[in-house]
């Protein structure tokens, strides 16, 4: 697929994904009173579906990149992503422990970092598993 065609397809899919995700959010917003557990589950489902749609939107662009560019990106995500995550984690840990006579507290931004780390780890585990399943001849990937 040419770069321009992949770009056009990516933009089209991204717009479609945004429209669909926005519609899901609107449905969630105007839902009648529902138990908090169900609402949280619905929010997680909307976020997961929207993230999946946006990945689907980006797929043509990723596939249009030549293999060296893909390898460079994988290296950047793996090493750069880990460095950034560890750096942010350590920064928070240093801030939490640098005032010895006070009760340690968790800064809000540190909570954000932790949520991001957990989400990244879940995503990493899912795609790591899919990669191996696709190469194991299991289930739909026989």
């Amino acid at each position, binding site marked *: 697929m040419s770069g321009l065609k992949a770009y056009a397809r990516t933009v089209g899919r991204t717009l479609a994904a945004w429209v669909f995700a926005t519609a899901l959010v609107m449905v969630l917003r105007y839902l009648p009173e529902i138990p908090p557990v169900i609402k949280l589950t619905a929010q997680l489902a909307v976020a997961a579906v929207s993230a999946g749609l946006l990945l689907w939107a980006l797929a043509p662009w990723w596939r249009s990149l*030549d*293999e*060296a*560019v893909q*390898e460079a990106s994988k290296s950047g995500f793996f090493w750069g992503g880990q460095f950034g995550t560890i750096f942010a984690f350590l920064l928070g840990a240093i801030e939490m422990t640098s005032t010895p006579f006070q009760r340690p507290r968790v800064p809000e931004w540190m909570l954000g970092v932790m949520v991001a780390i957990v989400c990244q780890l879940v995503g990493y585990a899912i795609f790591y598993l899919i990669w191996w399943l696709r190469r194991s001849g299991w289930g739909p990937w026989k």
Partner: protein
Amino acid sequence: MKNRLKVLRAERDWSQADLAERLEVSRQTVNALETGKYDPSLPLAFKIARLFGLPIETIFQDEA
């Protein structure tokens, strides 16, 4: 891994951009291949071999 890409390309009087277009990769990728900084995947190595009409092992040599 060593390779003869630069020589083969020069014999045909192709620029890096020409080769990149024929292989459907970027010019930077061709440069990385020629300088031995990047080893191609098997599909790309076969594509290169087909393009030059040569067996893979006459283009790429393992340094081990």
